[in-house]
Structures are given as C-alpha cells and as structure tokens.
C-alpha cells in the first residue's frame, strides 16, 4: 500500500474545497433550524421545577417540561415487543391558559389533526416490562432541554424556572422537530430569538 508521495491536490483548490464544504455544512445546520423558526407551528409550554456548562457551547439553563413525562394512559397503539431504542410521536393540544399539553402518544407516527401539533421525541432507551404492557410513565426528551445564555446570566432564569414562572414558546417543523423560539418570564418575553 504505497501511495505516490508526489500526488497532492493543488493547495488552493484543497483550501477552497475544504472551506466551502465546511461552510455548506454550517449553512445547512443554520438553515435547518431557521426554517423551523420561520415557518413552524407555534406552541407554548410550561417549564417544570441546575448552573451547568457545556465545554463548547457555554452556560445553559436546564429546562424540563410536563410533556417530558408521558403517562402510559395516553399511549395509543402497540408498544415495542422488546427493550431497545425507541421514539415516540406526541400530540399536543392547547389548554384554556394557552399552554400546550400532551394528549396522545404513540410509538408509530400520529396523523396530523386540526388544532393539534405532533412532536417527535429524541430516541430514548425503552425498557419493556413485558409483552403488550407499558411502564406507568415514559420519560422522554425533545431537544428543547437546554437554553444557552451569556456567561453568568443563567441564575435569574433558573430562579424563575424554580418558581415556575418560566414558559417556553417553540415552533415545530412538519416532521415534528421542535425549536425554541422565545423564552417568557412572568408573561414577558426575554431573549427573543432572531432567525440567524
């Protein structure tokens, strides 16, 4: 296995290709999220009652939601036969207070319905208690569980979250991917999210 040492792409071509490709990847990542913010369906969620830090992305506030706990009573359709990686489709409907709650969940895809929005959970490890039965509660995540804040500004939001005064407005794409659009503190929007 000897490759000729003389062969080498012209460096300028290599440079432009590498930079263009990586820019395209970053552009795709940005646009895939901005498009949800631009045209996704609006939902509003209550956050339930940590200042952690991600090495690369900085300080964030951990958010958890009532819709992160799915009681087995609202799960329709067949559960998986064996333990393994699974995803749920969760139907959300708005309540009288403007907050959306989970009304139906399924391991298969849920059809779209007027007045409701279907979310896809992130894959999670499902431990089957036995054939055709479900654990009492399923704990799921949606990719909405972190809100990155400028260094040192997480404390105010955490206090509000712990006092249950923090709400999240999210937009949901057609395939069920949610995207945080706005954080609402005591009814007032904070950190409005621009598209880019």
């Amino acid at each position: 296995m000897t490759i000729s040492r003389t062969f080498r792409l012209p460096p300028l071509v290599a440079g432009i290709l590498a930079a263009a490709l990586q820019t395209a990847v970053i552009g795709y990542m940005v646009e895939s999220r901005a498009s949800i913010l631009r045209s996704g369906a609006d939902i509003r969620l209550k956050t339930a009652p940590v200042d952690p830090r991600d090495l690369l992305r900085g300080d964030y506030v951990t958010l958890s939601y009532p819709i992160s706990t799915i009681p087995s009573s609202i799960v329709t359709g067949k559960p998986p036969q064996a333990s393994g990686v699974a995803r749920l489709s969760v139907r959300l409907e708005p309540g009288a207070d403007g907050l959306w709650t989970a009304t139906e969940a399924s391991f298969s895809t849920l059809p779209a319905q007027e007045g409701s929005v279907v979310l896809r959970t992130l894959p999670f490890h499902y431990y089957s208690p036995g054939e055709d039965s479900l654990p009492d509660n399923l704990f799921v995540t949606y990719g909405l569980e972190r809100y990155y804040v400028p260094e040192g500004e997480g404390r105010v939001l955490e206090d509000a979250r712990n006092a249950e005064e923090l709400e999240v407005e999210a937009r949901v794409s057609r395939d069920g991917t949610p995207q945080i659009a706005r954080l609402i503190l005591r009814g007032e929007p904070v950190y409005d999210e621009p598209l880019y």
Partner: protein
Amino acid sequence: MYRGRLERDLRQWTAQGLIDAPTAGRLLAEYDSRPSSFSLGRVLMIIAALLVSAAVLLLVAANWEFIPRILRLVGIVGLIWSAYLAGAMLLMRGFERLAAAFLVLGTLSFGGAIALVGQMYHLSGDTFQAMLVWFAGAVVAAALFRSGSVTAIVGFLAFAVAGMNWFGPSGADEAVLLWLMPLLAVIVILLVRYTDAPRVRHLAYLLLVAWLAFIYGENETPQTAIAIAALGAVAYLAAAVPQSPLQALARSAGAAPAFYSYLVLLLGLFVLHAEFDTVGDRLILGIVTLAGAVAGIALSGKENGAVRYLGYAAFAAETLYLASETIGSIIGTSGFFLVAGLVMALIAWAVIVLERRFSKAESRLEA
C-alpha cells in the same frame, strides 16, 4: 529518541575509525532534513495554533452579547476560510510547517462553528451528531490537504466521537454504535497512510484496544475474553510470522501492529485470570500465558523491543502468579517468598540465556 542514539553511535564509529567525521556529519544532517524529524519551530507553531483555537472555542462558549450572534457566525466562517486559504498559500510557497498550523486552526474553528449553531438554536441531545460532523469535516480537510497535522486532530476527534457514543444519549442504532469505533479506527489508519503521519497510528490502535475493552465491559463472560485473546493471537501471528501474507503490510506500519495485537492477546489472557476460578483452569491458562510470552519474545524479540519487554513482563508476572496460586498454597506464605525469589532468579537466568542466543544468532548471521 532515535536521533540521540544515532548521534552517539556515529560518534563511536568515528572514534573507532569505521567512518570519517565529515561522513558522520553528513549522515546526521540528512536525518535532520527529513520532514518527520523533530523541529522545535514546528512544535511551537502547532502549540500556538492550538492556543488560538482554544481562544476561539471559548469565545463561542462565552456567548458574549457584545458581538451580535450573526456577526459571530459570519466571523467564525470567515476564520475557517482565511485559515484554509492562508494554509494553501503557505503550502504553495513551500512553508509546510507554518501551513500545518493554519490548517489546524481552520479545522478546530469548524468545531467552534458547529458549537455556535448548537448554541444559537439551543440544541440539546445532539452532542454525538455534532462531534461526528466535526470529525467528518476534519477527515475531508486532512485528505484534501494531505496534512499529517490535521490527521492528528482527526485521531483525537475519533476518541471524542467514541466517548460521546458511550456516555451521551446518541439515538443511533446500537448495532451501528458497536461497529462505529473500529470504523473510526480504519478511517484514521487510512488517513495515516495517505497523509504520512505515522505517529497518529497509535491513536487508531488505542481506539481499537479501547473498543475491545468496551465489548468486554458489555459482555463480561469467559467466552468474550477467550475471543479477545484469540483475536489478539491471530492478529499478532499475522503481523509477526515471516510466512504470513500480511507481514509485509504490518511491517510497513513499523512496530505498532505487532505490539498492539500482542497487547490485546495479553489483555485477553489477563481478564481470563479473573474469569477462571478453578485451579485446573488457571493452571492451563498459566501455561498458555507463559507459552504466549515466550512466543512473543522468540518471534519478535530481536526487531521489536516493545513486544520483547511486554513478553518479559508477562512472563515474570505469570510465573509469580502461578507460584502464588499452586506452590504457594502448599508450603505457606513464608515459603512463597523463598520460591518467588528462586523463580525470579530462574527468570533472570532464562532471560540471560535468551539474550545470549540472540547475540550469537546475530554474529552467526554476520559471519
């Protein structure tokens, strides 16, 4: 390292009149001019690039409101472009070492850009995918520029990807995750050969050893340990036996393939010691281990110092272990130390005999 030994040998040969002083000087100068030889300038330049990259990554992490985030995004993409283009310009002018630093900066900035997107859109639960995208971008950059330094970054990112796979929720299929680590290692080895970055090879081999340890951790059974030891034995024989068709390929990668496969064999045997609990099983295992140690010393002892020392260490440890397991239980603890001392003397004698045989074989070869 090698340069120190070379200089010492050349001085000795000059003193003995085997070569003249100008030849010794020319030989040393030839070695120093090779691109793979140590250059303080290059090392310091790469360290500078790593520091600047760390500054960029931390600036992203700080989420500093003073700079609007769209400006941050444009800035970091601009940094990627300038780093790669500057690297390309320097390569064209022949400044290979300075260029390597810029390529490293560009590749690490790409990771910063990925982190920035995650921060901008508050993504969570996607760390594994983010690391995988960074890894793929680095692979492409290393291949396009044929850059050994970027290949080193790829080697470390492979570990990061594998680590996220273990510890983070990843969401990919478990069968895929199981084969991910060897796949990463193969990609790194191919890049090592293509970009001529032999030192990065160790990262790939370590990744494979870690993968086997991970598999054993998932299925802690004697069967797994036997399979790992057998795999190590087969790989070692393929790399070390002169009749093996793979030996030429393994040799072209230096001492590493034989050493790491031998290490896997010994690690497999080592965990088997914890799996087997009857005296009979352990005795058989002990004999297999001793045979493995002697085989390693005999097959690779002469040209592969790393395998030789690993073989000596395994031989000594196993002999002591056997002495404590069987003989020691009979004559009591105080007798054990006496036996261990005698055994040690026997090992020393065996090593001396082996060493003498090697040097005899060598002089016979020269005669």
